[in-house]
């Protein structure tokens, strides 16, 4: 019985159990709902859960464990000389056995007999059935495959039987437990509580897992390159092995960090004033109709994939800046060479700033609108104009929240990749001219991990060290932002 069919049958049993449980509760109450502790539906849900959940857990555990058991059993059937071979060889053999096992049910008796006589025909016979077998088969493999199939079959049958049995037994006992004073609602709600908890812990555990995997890889990197050379090195020059160099190159973080912060700074320089002004207009001046059209439009900007902003930088903004700088220098000096390169800090910064505008404006708008109306009225009632009210009362009151929002935006700017890849170039340089290319941490992570690489050299492992550094920076920014926002909230509630 396939897993899907099994689950479907379990669901049907659960549905029947639900109806039975509700009917039994109804019968026990004799039509007086006050006689029951919970609503009849809760009794039904309780019986259904008792029928479904234990079986579901059994299926999940069984399906996780049984492959390992079957694998080791199949390997046991290998002849001694195969067992003596290396682990890689064995797993190769095991892979072939699995393929053969998958194809075996589709062959006729004669074909199997034919293969037994001459194993070298296996490949062609299987190919005719559209199963690709990697290498020439050994005679023992046919037996191992047969064992594998037999064991899988037994495993499935046993699982189906056990699961169905458990489901029916569970439903039966749950039905027996249904009584007027039985607290079915509390039981059902407890199950719901656990499922909610499970959902939230999955997200948290995944984050922990990501950090842990990054940290282990980064630690491997630091065994090859000393930490101080990475954190305080001012030259980024990871030479790939085989380029004729004896050393593995230099992995200085500083130029990348400088580029990241510089581009982020230019981006914030664009995004903060524009976004903040937009937010003030939306929150304080715009008529409701204007607001209801302009705000979603502005937020559409947030939905554009960043790679599209990258194109925009690459084909529009970069060349535009280059040409305009050529015109400018031509007008001033008569020499028409552009002083802004198409790929430069300023191109990336401006485009990233445009990307960030909706974040700044949307977050700030919410914060400004959250300032109590009483404060506005108080100021207006004293004869202050709207702009005086905004400048002297609303913005100061909203400032901590806005700062928090800006910090969150900054952490986005630091983590942004695609725009920078296309707009700022890949040259890891330390310089202050915004008209020349620089690069960021994220770009270098992409660089180090694209291509055909082995994950044991410092050239690739450095990506994890960069990643965890970036993670720490954005995490710190976010925590600080949350801290500020929370402090602000205390003032008004």
């Amino acid at each position, binding site marked *: 019985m396939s897993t899907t069919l099994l689950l479907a049958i379990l669901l049907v049993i659960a549905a029947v159990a639900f109806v039975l449980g509700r009917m039994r509760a109804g019968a026990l109450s004799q039509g007086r709902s006050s006689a029951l502790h919970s609503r009849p539906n809760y009794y039904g849900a309780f019986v259904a859960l008792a029928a479904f959940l234990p079986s579901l857990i059994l299926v999940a555990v069984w399906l996780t464990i049984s492959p390992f058991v079957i694998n080791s059993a199949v390997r046991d059937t290998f002849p001694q000389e195969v067992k003596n071979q290396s682990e890689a060889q064995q797993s190769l053999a095991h892979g072939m056995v699995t393929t053969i096992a998958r194809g075996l049910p589709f062959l006729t008796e004669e074909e199997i007999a034919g293969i037994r006589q001459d194993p070298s025909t296996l490949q062609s016979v299987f190919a005719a059935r559209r199963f690709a077998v990697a290498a020439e088969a050994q005679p023992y493999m046919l037996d191992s495959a047969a064992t594998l199939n037999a064991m899988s079959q037994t495993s499935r049958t046993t699982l189906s039987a056990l699961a169905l049995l458990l489901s029916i037994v569970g439903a039966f006992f749950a039905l027996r437990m249904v009584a007027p004073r039985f607290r079915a609602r509390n039981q059902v709600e407890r199950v719901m509580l656990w499922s909610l908890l499970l959902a939230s812990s999955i997200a948290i555990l995944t984050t922990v897992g990501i950090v842990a995997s990054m940290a282990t890889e980064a630690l491997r990197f630091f065994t090859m390159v000393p930490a101080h050379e990475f954190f305080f090195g001012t030259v980024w020059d990871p030479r790939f092995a085989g380029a004729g160099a004896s050393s593995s190159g230099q992995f200085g973080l500083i130029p990348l960090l400088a580029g990241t912060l510089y581009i982020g700074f230019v981006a914030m320089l664009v995004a903060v004033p524009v976004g903040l002004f937009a937010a003030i207009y939306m929150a304080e001046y715009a*008529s*409701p109709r204007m607001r209801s059209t302009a705000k979603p439009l502005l937020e559409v900007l947030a939905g554009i994939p960043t790679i599209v902003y990258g194109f925009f930088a690459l084909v529009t903004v970069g060349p535009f800046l280059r040409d305009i700088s050529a015109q400018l220098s031509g007008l001033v000096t008569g020499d028409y060479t552009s002083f802004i390169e198409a790929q430069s800090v300023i191109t990336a910064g401006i485009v990233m700033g445009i990307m960030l505008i909706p974040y700044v404006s949307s977050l700030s708008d919410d914060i400004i609108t959250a300032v*109590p109306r*009483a*404060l*506005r*009225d*108080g*100021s*207006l*009632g*004293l*004869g*202050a*104009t709207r702009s*005086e009210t905004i400048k*002297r*009362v609303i913005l*100061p*009151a909203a400032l901590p929240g806005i700062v928090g929002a800006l910090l969150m935006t900054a952490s986005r700017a630091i983590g942004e990749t695609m725009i920078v890849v296309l707009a700022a170039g890949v040259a890891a340089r330390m310089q202050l001219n915004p008209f020349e290319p620089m690069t960021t941490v994220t770009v270098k992570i992409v660089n180090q991990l694209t291509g055909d690489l082995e994950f044991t050299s410092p050239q690739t492992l450095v990506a994890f060290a960069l990643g965890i550094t970036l993670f720490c920076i954005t995490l710190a920014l976010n925590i600080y932002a949350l801290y500020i926002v929370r402090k602000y909230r205390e*003032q008004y509630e």
Partner: protein
Amino acid sequence: MTEAATEELLDKKMNAVPLKMVGKDVSVYYGDKRALYDVNLNVRENTVTALIGPSGCGKSTFLRTLNRMNDTIDGCRVTGTITLDGDDIYDSSIDVVELRARVGMVFQKPNPFPKSIYENVAYGPRIHGLAKSKADLDQVVEQSLQKAGLWNEVKDRLHEGGTGLSGGQQQRLCIARAVAVSPEVILMDEPCSALDPIATARVEELIHELRTNFTIVIVTHSMQQAARVSQRTAMFHLGNLVEENDTDKMFTNPDDQRTQDYIMGRFG
């Protein structure tokens, strides 16, 4: 002359007191909904006028038309005329900012700005440029706080946050803030509804004292409060002005049956 004697004299002269603000056929609409029906109501100079009536009767709406705070509400429309010293305040030649400096307002819930006590009071004088120097400003702040009866309580902590004061102190700070602009009229929208009885008594006493310098219009839910602090009372019901009379007469022998019923607690 003692204070009591002054008061008596003022009360006697009530009908001779000049009119500060005159509302004529005032109607207010929120969108399609009409909230006020042709209200004719006068506010006399240096008098406390109380507006009473059940919830939703339009008394706060009328109060807010007096300094055009209704302008800040979307879809609100006012018809009829309201004059301040004879000038129509809804005329296009009137600057609403200037109007609100002359007709100040204290709100239902104390709403000090999240600034220091000093800055709260100095806010109005600063934006209107009423003080020429720091010393001037200091003086305005001190006088205002004194008028609001708050000076002795806060003089040692002027630079601490205004939101840290108690509810009653916050409301008196808001009154000081309104007084600091030297308005001619002060509008109070249920100024004691968020305060405990002791703080209420303190604010009522203050209203009494402020009457010598300012014209006051107060909206209140409490009949006793209207009786205690006001000289004139206006009763609103369902958007109509039911009766306007001397407070004494209003509470002893009202002209209108509805006023009688409301005061006796038969509805509202």
